[in-house]
């Protein structure tokens, strides 16, 4: 291999959301360069929504990403409400979180069964698994359908929900539908547990074992969840969401339409495993038990643990969803919407999207968006993803075909939302 420069490239990583590729250059018996290319075009979401009416901008933001459109919608709405100085009633917050949980369930189920599992079982495409793995595909569809249905009922549809608006919801489902939602969630619990057991058996490649800095939103109310007003770091540091720019520093890199992020000059990770690493003490119910019995697998040092952490969250969020619906039902009948006055102001919302921390910072002036900054989990994760692809490359550069396969698996473990990452923010 002396002086031979060998490019190993995956032009288009399959089974992720969005278009990205990997370029690895090997020479002189070592890996010279590793680049995660984001080839999805730019969409300028911040730039195109500045100057637009607030409600119209809020309709456009979810279009950043289909896999987590509810996450985008709800985070944008919260940032806007913080900006105009409005706080939704507790029952509305609870129901919004249920909608968000619908997104979480659907997204995790799709990622685990359709995008990740085929690699482990030796299929190029999840649809080919149907005959051999009837039970698994059945569970995938059931969980996916449950999440989609929750978003249909609470958000108007599974992709690009319009039914989450300033002040609450356009319309709420009736009590019977929420009761049915509880029932369907409870019935899905054993399937989520089966998913956890299934993914607990899968290999976590030790090539990428090493220290990782994890960041996650510190949940409100001290219960493992989605909404929060501060960010916790696995080194023990904690900062208010408003300070995100100080500690999650973005840079433009030449080979990608998406920027890279650093915490104290170091790449960091966000996502299900980061939530578990930083906040497992706030889990409860069956998820808490599973966490306790599988701590060695849910470790902070391997990106593949993110898959199992997602499975754990399926269990958790199903139980959490039931509790949140109960909270809302206790106050039934719930008025869907409050009048809001659109005042000038600035608001930052940080939430946990399926793939990790999602930041929306919005300034509202004269009823219009005056400033917008949006940073998505995948954009945060890209630098860390490159580190892990490099670690994999350093072990396997002599077997290019196997390396390509393993590289895709590393990237997939992050569940990257590449479309999301190309939202691009103001500097």
């Amino acid at each position, binding site marked *: 291999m002396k002086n031979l420069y060998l490019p190993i490239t995956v032009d288009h990583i399959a089974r992720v*959301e969005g*278009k990205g590729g990997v370029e690895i250059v090997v020479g002189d018996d070592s890996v010279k360069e590793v680049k995660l290319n984001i080839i999805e*075009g730019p969409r300028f979401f911040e730039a195109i929504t500045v100057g637009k009416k607030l409600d119209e901008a809020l309709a456009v933001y979810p279009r950043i990403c289909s896999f987590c459109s509810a996450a985008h919608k709800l985070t944008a709405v919260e940032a806007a409400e913080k900006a105009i100085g409005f706080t939704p009633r507790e029952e509305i917050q609870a129901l919004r979180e249920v909608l968000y949980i619908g997104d979480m369930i659907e997204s995790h189920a799709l990622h685990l069964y359709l995008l990740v599992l085929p690699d482990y079982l030796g299929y190029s495409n999840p649809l080919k698994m149907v005959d051999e793995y009837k039970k698994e595909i059945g569970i995938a569809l059931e969980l996916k359908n449950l999440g989609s249905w929750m978003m249909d009922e609470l958000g108007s549809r599974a992709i690009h929900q319009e039914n989450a608006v300033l002040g609450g919801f356009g319309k709420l489902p009736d009590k019977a539908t929420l009761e049915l939602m509880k029932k369907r969630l409870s019935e899905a619990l054993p399937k989520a547990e089966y998913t956890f057991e299934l993914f607990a058996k899968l290999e976590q490649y030790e090539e990428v074992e090493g220290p990782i800095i994890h960041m996650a939103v510190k949940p409100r109310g001290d219960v493992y969840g989605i909404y929060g007003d501060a960010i916790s770091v696995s080194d023990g540091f904690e900062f208010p969401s408003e300070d995100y720019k100080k500690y999650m520093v973005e840079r433009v*890199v030449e080979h990608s339409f998406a920027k890279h992020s650093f915490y104290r000059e170091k790449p960091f990770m966000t996502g299900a495993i980061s939530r578990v690493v930083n906040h497992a003490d706030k889990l409860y119910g069956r998820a808490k038990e599973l966490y306790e019995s599988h701590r060695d697998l849910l470790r902070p040092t391997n990106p593949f643990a993110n898959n199992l952490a997602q499975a754990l969250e399926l269990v958790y969020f199903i139980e959490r969803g039931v509790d949140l619906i109960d909270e809302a039902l206790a106050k039934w009948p719930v008025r869907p919407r409050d009048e809001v006055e659109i005042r000038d102001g600035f608001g930052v919302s940080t939430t946990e999207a399926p793939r990790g921390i999602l930041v929306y910072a919005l300034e509202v002036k004269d009823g219009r968006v005056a400033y917008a900054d949006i940073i998505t989990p995948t954009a945060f994760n890209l630098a860390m993803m490159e580190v892990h692809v490099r670690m994999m490359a350093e072990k396997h550069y002599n077997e290019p075909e196997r390396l390509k396969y393993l590289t895709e698996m590393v990237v997939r473990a992050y569940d990257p939302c590449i479309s999301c990452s190309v939202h691009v923010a103001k500097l």
Partner: protein
Amino acid sequence: MEGKVRIGFYALTSCYGCQLQLAMMDELLQLLPHAEIVCWFMLERDSYEDEPVDIAFIEGSVSTEEEVELVRKIRENAKIVVAVGSCAVHGGVQSWEKDKSLEELWKTVYGDGKVKFEPKMAEPVENYIKVDYRIYGCPPEKRDFLYALGTFLVGSWPEDIDYPVCVECRLKGHPCILIEKGEPCLGPITRAGCDARCPGFGVACIGCRGAIGYDVAWFDSLARTFKEKGISKEEILQRMKMFNAHNPKLEEMVEKIFQGVEE
């Protein structure tokens, strides 16, 4: 079509929602015995962008020079090209500021940063290649896919819907958001097919399926209602541009409908 129909699903720049919508359809499993997926990177690792296909579904707007090449290649290789969703059909929400220069947008977002790809302003697929059929929506409804696919598979041709969301909204019996609440609902000029989904939730239509063909009668009455409700021409224009920015007749038409209102 005889034998297995060869299908390709190609992505340009988008949120991947159209593909996700199709991937989430349980009905897909029934389709599989009749189809061969030649290219669909979102689900299939063994995907080939260069292979001939019977039906090419393209989602996303053309937003890089590389994507211009890709759509040309897809056209050469496909018997039927279907533009799927608001991005491929109308340029998508990323076209909302299409009147600003690329340089200006770039600077706002990336500053002086450079990347090695060649970005361009988002455009509909049709600006570069001939498109045979369009599936509207952001995202399209599942039944849009079922109808199109089913029709192609029996060797026939699906038809466009040529009536507005209002028709479906009336049939559903929802209160009129425009008349009763005075909100700028785009139902009257938006292509139907969603069963008036958003008005059903009490939310004004934002026109995500795109405008129905222009030069139709309801524009006049709509203009009158907009004006009576105090909604300005500029407001309507801005709102309609969200999903129709590339329509060359948009400004002219909005101008015309407002002029058409005589007091």
